[in-house]
Protein backbone atom coordinates (compact mmCIF):
# COMPACT_ATOMS: atom_id res chain seq x y z
CA UNK A 1 0.00 0.00 0.00
CA UNK A 2 1.22 3.46 -0.83
CA UNK A 3 1.93 6.03 1.80
CA UNK A 4 0.19 9.33 1.36
CA UNK A 5 0.27 12.69 3.10
CA UNK A 6 -3.25 11.88 4.24
CA UNK A 7 -1.93 8.96 6.27
CA UNK A 8 0.66 11.24 7.81
CA UNK A 9 -1.97 13.73 8.93
CA UNK A 10 -4.20 11.03 10.34
CA UNK A 11 -1.14 9.61 12.12
CA UNK A 12 -0.35 13.02 13.61
CA UNK A 13 -3.98 13.34 14.70
CA UNK A 14 -4.07 9.95 16.43
CA UNK A 15 -0.68 10.46 18.09
CA UNK A 16 -1.70 13.91 19.32
CA UNK A 17 -4.94 12.52 20.71
CA UNK A 18 -3.23 9.68 22.55
CA UNK A 19 -0.50 12.02 23.77
CA UNK A 20 -3.09 14.34 25.30
CA UNK A 21 -4.78 11.37 26.98
CA UNK A 22 -1.45 10.29 28.47
CA UNK A 23 -0.74 13.85 29.50
CA UNK A 24 -4.15 14.06 31.19
CA UNK A 25 -3.50 10.79 32.99
CA UNK A 26 0.02 11.58 34.15
CA UNK A 27 0.18 15.32 34.64
CA UNK A 28 -3.42 16.19 35.43
CA UNK A 29 -4.64 12.97 37.03
CA UNK A 30 -3.18 11.06 39.91
CA UNK A 31 -1.94 8.07 37.93
CA UNK A 32 1.63 9.31 37.81
CA UNK A 33 1.84 10.50 41.38
CA UNK A 34 1.37 7.51 43.57
CA UNK A 35 1.87 3.84 43.09
CA UNK A 36 0.00 1.65 45.55
CA UNK A 37 1.43 -1.63 44.31
CA UNK A 38 4.27 -1.63 46.84
CA UNK A 39 2.24 -1.07 49.93
CA UNK A 40 1.32 -2.59 53.27
CA UNK A 41 -1.97 -2.24 55.06
CA UNK A 42 -2.58 -1.06 58.59
CA UNK A 43 -5.79 -0.01 60.25
CA UNK A 44 -6.86 2.27 63.05
CA UNK A 45 -10.05 3.08 64.97
CA UNK A 46 -11.30 6.61 65.31
CA UNK A 47 -14.24 7.84 67.36
CA UNK A 48 -15.03 10.42 64.69
CA UNK A 49 -13.53 10.70 61.26
CA UNK A 50 -15.18 14.00 60.35
CA UNK A 51 -15.07 14.42 56.59
CA UNK A 52 -12.36 11.87 55.85
CA UNK A 53 -12.96 10.01 52.58
CA UNK A 54 -11.43 6.96 50.94
CA UNK A 55 -8.37 7.89 48.88
CA UNK A 56 -7.53 10.71 51.29
CA UNK A 57 -3.81 11.15 51.67
CA UNK A 58 -1.73 10.00 54.60
CA UNK A 59 1.16 12.23 55.44
CA UNK A 60 4.03 12.10 57.82
CA UNK A 61 6.03 15.27 58.37
CA UNK A 62 4.11 16.62 55.39
CA UNK A 63 5.32 13.88 53.03
CA UNK A 64 2.73 11.75 51.26
CA UNK A 65 3.28 8.18 52.49
CA UNK A 66 0.01 6.44 51.60
CA UNK A 67 -3.70 6.56 51.01
CA UNK A 68 -6.85 5.66 52.90
CA UNK A 69 -8.29 2.60 51.20
CA UNK A 70 -11.43 1.82 53.17
CA UNK A 71 -13.62 3.32 55.87
CA UNK A 72 -16.24 1.24 57.69
CA UNK A 73 -18.14 1.39 60.94
CA UNK A 74 -17.12 -1.34 63.36
CA UNK A 75 -20.39 -2.31 65.05
CA UNK A 76 -18.65 -4.00 68.00
CA UNK A 77 -16.96 -0.82 69.15
CA UNK A 78 -19.10 1.68 67.26
CA UNK A 79 -16.02 3.34 65.99
CA UNK A 80 -14.86 4.06 62.47
CA UNK A 81 -12.33 1.58 61.16
CA UNK A 82 -9.99 3.20 58.68
CA UNK A 83 -7.80 0.96 56.55
CA UNK A 84 -4.71 2.64 55.17
CA UNK A 85 -2.19 1.43 52.70
CA UNK A 86 1.27 2.79 53.30
CA UNK A 87 4.27 2.82 51.01
CA UNK A 88 6.69 -0.06 51.73
CA UNK A 89 9.62 2.35 51.71
CA UNK A 90 8.34 4.02 54.87
CA UNK A 91 8.19 1.96 58.04
CA UNK A 92 6.68 3.36 61.21
CA UNK A 93 7.19 2.40 64.87
CA UNK A 94 4.40 0.48 66.59
CA UNK A 95 3.36 3.39 68.78
CA UNK A 96 2.84 5.78 65.88
CA UNK A 97 0.14 8.33 66.53
CA UNK A 98 -2.56 8.82 63.87
CA UNK A 99 -4.29 12.20 63.70
CA UNK A 100 -7.04 13.35 61.41
CA UNK A 101 -5.97 16.78 60.26
CA UNK A 102 -7.31 19.39 57.90
CA UNK A 103 -5.25 21.08 55.24
CA UNK A 104 -6.00 24.75 55.56
CA UNK A 105 -9.05 26.05 57.38
CA UNK A 106 -11.65 24.52 55.07
CA UNK A 107 -9.47 22.15 53.06
CA UNK A 108 -9.84 18.43 52.74
CA UNK A 109 -8.99 16.11 55.58
CA UNK A 110 -6.03 13.78 55.72
CA UNK A 111 -4.33 11.52 58.22
CA UNK A 112 -1.11 12.70 59.78
CA UNK A 113 1.23 10.10 61.27
CA UNK A 114 3.49 11.04 64.16
CA UNK A 115 6.10 8.36 64.77
CA UNK A 116 6.64 7.24 68.35
CA UNK A 117 9.75 5.80 69.92
CA UNK A 118 9.13 2.04 69.75
CA UNK A 119 11.92 0.00 68.17
CA UNK A 120 9.42 -2.49 66.72
CA UNK A 121 7.99 -1.55 63.35
CA UNK A 122 4.39 -1.83 62.14
CA UNK A 123 3.72 -4.83 59.95
CA UNK A 124 1.07 -5.60 57.37
CA UNK A 125 -2.38 -5.96 58.97
CA UNK A 126 -1.50 -4.44 62.31
CA UNK A 127 -3.36 -1.75 64.14
CA UNK A 128 -2.39 1.79 65.01
CA UNK A 129 -3.47 2.02 68.66
CA UNK A 130 -3.11 5.70 69.32
CA UNK A 131 -5.49 7.86 67.38
CA UNK A 132 -7.01 11.27 67.59
CA UNK A 133 -10.34 12.05 65.98
CA UNK A 134 -11.11 14.80 63.57
CA UNK A 135 -11.82 18.19 65.00
CA UNK A 136 -15.46 18.88 64.30
CA UNK A 137 -16.03 22.59 63.99
CA UNK A 138 -19.58 22.41 65.35
CA UNK A 139 -18.40 20.65 68.52
CA UNK A 140 -15.77 23.27 69.08
CA UNK A 141 -18.22 26.10 68.64
CA UNK A 142 -20.66 24.29 70.93
CA UNK A 143 -18.02 23.93 73.65
CA UNK A 144 -17.03 27.53 73.27
CA UNK A 145 -20.61 28.73 73.70
CA UNK A 146 -21.09 26.40 76.69
CA UNK A 147 -17.97 27.75 78.38
CA UNK A 148 -19.04 31.29 77.75
CA UNK A 149 -22.44 30.59 79.31
CA UNK A 150 -20.79 29.15 82.43
CA UNK A 151 -18.70 32.27 82.98
CA UNK A 152 -20.22 34.53 85.60
CA UNK A 153 -21.80 37.61 84.13
CA UNK A 154 -19.72 40.68 84.53
Amino acid at each position, binding site marked *: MERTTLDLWVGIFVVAGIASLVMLAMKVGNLGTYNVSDAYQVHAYFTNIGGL*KPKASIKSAGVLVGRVTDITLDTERYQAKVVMSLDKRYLFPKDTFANILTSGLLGEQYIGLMPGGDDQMLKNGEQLKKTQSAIVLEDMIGKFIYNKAEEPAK
Partner: protein
Amino acid sequence: MPADKAIKGIGHRVIDAVWRIGKASRFFFLALLYSGSGFRRFHLIIKELFSTGVMSLIIIIVAGLFVGMVLGLQGYETLKRYGSESALGGMVALSLVRELGPVMAALLFASRAGSAMTAEIGLMKATEQISAMEMMAVNPIARIVAPRFWAGVISMPLLAAMFSAVGVFGGYFVGVVQIGVDEGSFWSQMQAAVDFREDILNGVIKSFVFGIVVTVIALFEGYDAPPTAEGVSGATTRTVVTSSLAILMLDFVLTAIMFRGS
Protein backbone atom coordinates in the same frame (compact mmCIF):
# COMPACT_ATOMS: atom_id res chain seq x y z
CA MET B 1 -62.68 23.11 13.42
CA PRO B 2 -59.22 24.62 14.19
CA ALA B 3 -58.83 22.76 17.52
CA ASP B 4 -59.45 19.52 15.74
CA LYS B 5 -56.78 20.38 13.19
CA ALA B 6 -54.24 21.37 15.85
CA ILE B 7 -54.66 18.10 17.73
CA LYS B 8 -54.34 16.20 14.48
CA GLY B 9 -51.19 18.15 13.72
CA ILE B 10 -49.62 17.29 17.08
CA GLY B 11 -50.51 13.64 16.68
CA HIS B 12 -49.06 13.62 13.21
CA ARG B 13 -45.80 15.12 14.44
CA VAL B 14 -45.48 12.69 17.33
CA ILE B 15 -46.10 9.69 15.09
CA ASP B 16 -43.63 11.09 12.59
CA ALA B 17 -40.99 11.53 15.29
CA VAL B 18 -41.45 7.98 16.57
CA TRP B 19 -41.24 6.73 13.01
CA ARG B 20 -37.97 8.54 12.47
CA ILE B 21 -36.52 7.24 15.73
CA GLY B 22 -37.33 3.72 14.65
CA LYS B 23 -35.80 4.31 11.24
CA ALA B 24 -32.68 5.82 12.82
CA SER B 25 -32.31 2.81 15.13
CA ARG B 26 -32.58 0.44 12.20
CA PHE B 27 -30.02 2.57 10.37
CA PHE B 28 -27.64 2.44 13.34
CA PHE B 29 -28.03 -1.32 13.53
CA LEU B 30 -27.32 -1.69 9.81
CA ALA B 31 -24.25 0.53 10.09
CA LEU B 32 -22.92 -1.72 12.87
CA LEU B 33 -23.81 -4.84 10.89
CA TYR B 34 -21.91 -3.76 7.80
CA SER B 35 -18.95 -2.37 9.77
CA GLY B 36 -17.01 -5.56 9.12
CA SER B 37 -16.73 -4.85 5.43
CA GLY B 38 -16.03 -1.22 6.33
CA PHE B 39 -13.00 -2.29 8.34
CA ARG B 40 -11.76 -4.40 5.45
CA ARG B 41 -11.56 -1.18 3.45
CA PHE B 42 -9.51 0.54 6.08
CA HIS B 43 -8.22 3.26 3.75
CA LEU B 44 -11.78 4.60 3.64
CA ILE B 45 -11.78 5.02 7.41
CA ILE B 46 -8.40 6.76 7.20
CA LYS B 47 -9.78 9.13 4.60
CA GLU B 48 -12.79 9.93 6.77
CA LEU B 49 -10.59 10.31 9.86
CA PHE B 50 -8.78 12.98 7.91
CA SER B 51 -11.90 14.92 7.02
CA THR B 52 -13.64 14.57 10.40
CA GLY B 53 -10.73 14.41 12.84
CA VAL B 54 -7.77 16.23 11.36
CA MET B 55 -9.87 19.02 9.88
CA SER B 56 -11.49 19.62 13.29
CA LEU B 57 -8.11 19.90 15.01
CA ILE B 58 -7.69 23.63 14.68
CA ILE B 59 -11.16 24.59 15.91
CA ILE B 60 -10.81 22.18 18.84
CA ILE B 61 -7.39 23.47 19.86
CA VAL B 62 -8.29 27.14 19.57
CA ALA B 63 -11.61 26.66 21.36
CA GLY B 64 -9.97 24.55 24.11
CA LEU B 65 -7.30 27.16 24.68
CA PHE B 66 -9.80 29.96 25.08
CA VAL B 67 -12.20 27.96 27.23
CA GLY B 68 -9.28 27.06 29.51
CA MET B 69 -8.20 30.67 29.69
CA VAL B 70 -11.71 31.83 30.58
CA LEU B 71 -11.92 29.11 33.24
CA GLY B 72 -8.60 30.29 34.65
CA LEU B 73 -9.80 33.87 34.87
CA GLN B 74 -13.29 33.20 36.18
CA GLY B 75 -12.10 30.47 38.54
CA TYR B 76 -9.49 32.80 39.98
CA GLU B 77 -12.00 35.58 40.51
CA THR B 78 -14.38 33.23 42.31
CA LEU B 79 -11.83 31.31 44.35
CA LYS B 80 -10.15 34.52 45.45
CA ARG B 81 -13.25 35.35 47.51
CA TYR B 82 -12.65 32.25 49.60
CA GLY B 83 -8.93 32.78 49.73
CA SER B 84 -8.24 29.50 47.99
CA GLU B 85 -6.64 30.59 44.73
CA SER B 86 -4.32 27.63 45.01
CA ALA B 87 -7.24 25.31 44.18
CA LEU B 88 -7.43 26.88 40.72
CA GLY B 89 -5.64 24.00 39.03
CA GLY B 90 -8.05 21.45 40.43
CA MET B 91 -11.06 23.51 39.43
CA VAL B 92 -9.88 24.10 35.87
CA ALA B 93 -8.88 20.47 35.33
CA LEU B 94 -12.01 18.98 36.87
CA SER B 95 -14.41 21.14 34.92
CA LEU B 96 -12.54 20.46 31.69
CA VAL B 97 -12.06 16.73 32.10
CA ARG B 98 -15.51 15.98 33.45
CA GLU B 99 -17.77 18.33 31.53
CA LEU B 100 -16.43 20.96 29.21
CA GLY B 101 -13.95 18.79 27.32
CA PRO B 102 -16.41 16.11 26.19
CA VAL B 103 -19.41 18.42 25.79
CA MET B 104 -17.76 21.36 24.03
CA ALA B 105 -15.72 19.09 21.78
CA ALA B 106 -18.90 17.17 20.86
CA LEU B 107 -20.82 20.39 20.13
CA LEU B 108 -17.99 21.68 17.96
CA PHE B 109 -17.68 18.30 16.31
CA ALA B 110 -21.42 18.23 15.56
CA SER B 111 -21.36 21.63 13.91
CA ARG B 112 -18.01 21.23 12.19
CA ALA B 113 -17.94 17.57 11.08
CA GLY B 114 -21.52 16.41 11.59
CA SER B 115 -23.05 19.06 9.35
CA ALA B 116 -20.45 18.33 6.66
CA MET B 117 -21.27 14.62 6.82
CA THR B 118 -24.99 15.27 6.44
CA ALA B 119 -24.51 17.66 3.53
CA GLU B 120 -22.13 15.27 1.79
CA ILE B 121 -24.39 12.24 2.05
CA GLY B 122 -27.49 14.29 1.28
CA LEU B 123 -25.88 15.62 -1.90
CA MET B 124 -24.74 12.13 -2.83
CA LYS B 125 -28.34 11.08 -2.54
CA ALA B 126 -29.62 14.13 -4.45
CA THR B 127 -27.22 13.48 -7.30
CA GLU B 128 -28.25 9.81 -7.27
CA GLN B 129 -24.77 8.51 -6.45
CA ILE B 130 -26.29 6.26 -3.82
CA SER B 131 -28.76 4.74 -6.27
CA ALA B 132 -25.89 4.26 -8.69
CA MET B 133 -23.98 2.32 -6.04
CA GLU B 134 -26.96 0.13 -5.35
CA MET B 135 -27.23 -0.48 -9.09
CA MET B 136 -23.62 -1.69 -9.10
CA ALA B 137 -24.40 -4.01 -6.20
CA VAL B 138 -22.25 -1.96 -3.84
CA ASN B 139 -23.89 -1.67 -0.45
CA PRO B 140 -23.99 2.09 0.24
CA ILE B 141 -24.17 1.54 3.98
CA ALA B 142 -20.98 -0.49 3.98
CA ARG B 143 -19.25 1.80 1.51
CA ILE B 144 -20.35 5.25 2.69
CA VAL B 145 -21.93 5.07 6.13
CA ALA B 146 -19.81 2.57 8.08
CA PRO B 147 -16.40 4.23 7.45
CA ARG B 148 -17.79 7.62 8.42
CA PHE B 149 -19.39 6.16 11.52
CA TRP B 150 -16.18 4.61 12.76
CA ALA B 151 -14.13 7.65 11.88
CA GLY B 152 -16.48 9.76 14.00
CA VAL B 153 -16.46 7.32 16.90
CA ILE B 154 -12.66 7.09 16.89
CA SER B 155 -11.95 10.79 16.53
CA MET B 156 -14.43 12.08 19.12
CA PRO B 157 -12.62 10.85 22.30
CA LEU B 158 -9.28 11.95 20.86
CA LEU B 159 -10.62 15.41 20.11
CA ALA B 160 -12.16 15.67 23.58
CA ALA B 161 -8.86 14.65 25.19
CA MET B 162 -7.03 17.26 23.15
CA PHE B 163 -9.60 19.87 24.11
CA SER B 164 -9.09 19.13 27.82
CA ALA B 165 -5.31 19.01 27.55
CA VAL B 166 -5.10 22.30 25.66
CA GLY B 167 -7.65 23.82 28.05
CA VAL B 168 -5.50 22.91 31.04
CA PHE B 169 -2.62 24.75 29.42
CA GLY B 170 -4.90 27.71 28.74
CA GLY B 171 -5.83 27.78 32.42
CA TYR B 172 -2.16 27.41 33.33
CA PHE B 173 -1.26 30.31 31.07
CA VAL B 174 -3.79 32.69 32.58
CA GLY B 175 -3.58 31.44 36.17
CA VAL B 176 0.14 30.92 36.62
CA VAL B 177 1.87 32.98 33.95
CA GLN B 178 -0.40 36.02 33.96
CA ILE B 179 -2.07 36.22 37.37
CA GLY B 180 0.72 34.56 39.30
CA VAL B 181 -0.87 31.65 41.13
CA ASP B 182 1.87 29.45 42.55
CA GLU B 183 2.91 26.96 39.90
CA GLY B 184 3.60 24.10 42.30
CA SER B 185 0.24 24.36 44.02
CA PHE B 186 -1.52 24.70 40.65
CA TRP B 187 -0.26 21.30 39.48
CA SER B 188 -0.33 19.53 42.84
CA GLN B 189 -3.90 20.64 43.59
CA MET B 190 -4.84 19.43 40.14
CA GLN B 191 -3.31 16.03 40.73
CA ALA B 192 -4.91 15.76 44.14
CA ALA B 193 -8.34 16.61 42.76
CA VAL B 194 -8.42 14.62 39.52
CA ASP B 195 -8.74 10.88 39.74
CA PHE B 196 -7.76 8.84 36.72
CA ARG B 197 -10.61 6.31 36.76
CA GLU B 198 -13.29 8.49 38.26
CA ASP B 199 -12.75 11.63 36.23
CA ILE B 200 -10.60 11.05 33.18
CA LEU B 201 -11.96 7.66 32.14
CA ASN B 202 -15.54 8.78 32.71
CA GLY B 203 -14.85 11.80 30.52
CA VAL B 204 -13.52 9.52 27.81
CA ILE B 205 -16.61 7.31 28.06
CA LYS B 206 -18.79 10.39 27.76
CA SER B 207 -17.06 11.59 24.63
CA PHE B 208 -17.24 8.09 23.17
CA VAL B 209 -21.02 8.05 23.67
CA PHE B 210 -21.30 11.55 22.19
CA GLY B 211 -19.24 10.40 19.21
CA ILE B 212 -21.66 7.56 18.53
CA VAL B 213 -24.74 9.75 18.92
CA VAL B 214 -23.48 12.68 16.85
CA THR B 215 -22.26 10.57 13.94
CA VAL B 216 -25.40 8.44 13.86
CA ILE B 217 -27.61 11.54 13.82
CA ALA B 218 -25.50 13.21 11.13
CA LEU B 219 -25.34 10.14 8.92
CA PHE B 220 -29.02 9.33 9.33
CA GLU B 221 -30.13 12.87 8.56
CA GLY B 222 -28.02 12.83 5.41
CA TYR B 223 -29.18 9.42 4.34
CA ASP B 224 -32.81 10.28 5.04
CA ALA B 225 -32.75 13.76 3.48
CA PRO B 226 -35.21 14.52 0.69
CA PRO B 227 -33.09 14.60 -2.50
CA THR B 228 -33.53 18.29 -3.14
CA ALA B 229 -31.46 21.36 -2.38
CA GLU B 230 -34.02 22.40 0.20
CA GLY B 231 -34.10 18.93 1.73
CA VAL B 232 -30.32 18.82 2.17
CA SER B 233 -30.20 22.25 3.78
CA GLY B 234 -33.02 21.28 6.15
CA ALA B 235 -31.28 18.04 7.04
CA THR B 236 -28.04 19.88 7.80
CA THR B 237 -29.85 22.25 10.12
CA ARG B 238 -31.62 19.35 11.84
CA THR B 239 -28.30 17.58 12.35
CA VAL B 240 -26.81 20.48 14.25
CA VAL B 241 -29.94 21.16 16.29
CA THR B 242 -30.78 17.55 17.14
CA SER B 243 -27.25 16.49 17.95
CA SER B 244 -26.61 19.56 20.12
CA LEU B 245 -29.76 18.86 22.11
CA ALA B 246 -28.96 15.16 22.28
CA ILE B 247 -25.45 15.92 23.57
CA LEU B 248 -26.70 18.19 26.33
CA MET B 249 -29.48 15.85 27.44
CA LEU B 250 -27.26 12.77 27.34
CA ASP B 251 -24.63 14.70 29.25
CA PHE B 252 -27.05 15.18 32.11
CA VAL B 253 -28.02 11.50 32.09
CA LEU B 254 -24.41 10.32 31.96
CA THR B 255 -23.34 12.76 34.66
CA ALA B 256 -26.16 11.58 36.89
CA ILE B 257 -25.04 7.97 36.42
CA MET B 258 -21.30 8.60 36.77
CA PHE B 259 -20.95 11.24 39.45
CA ARG B 260 -23.80 10.62 41.80
CA GLY B 261 -21.73 12.09 44.57
CA SER B 262 -19.96 9.68 46.88
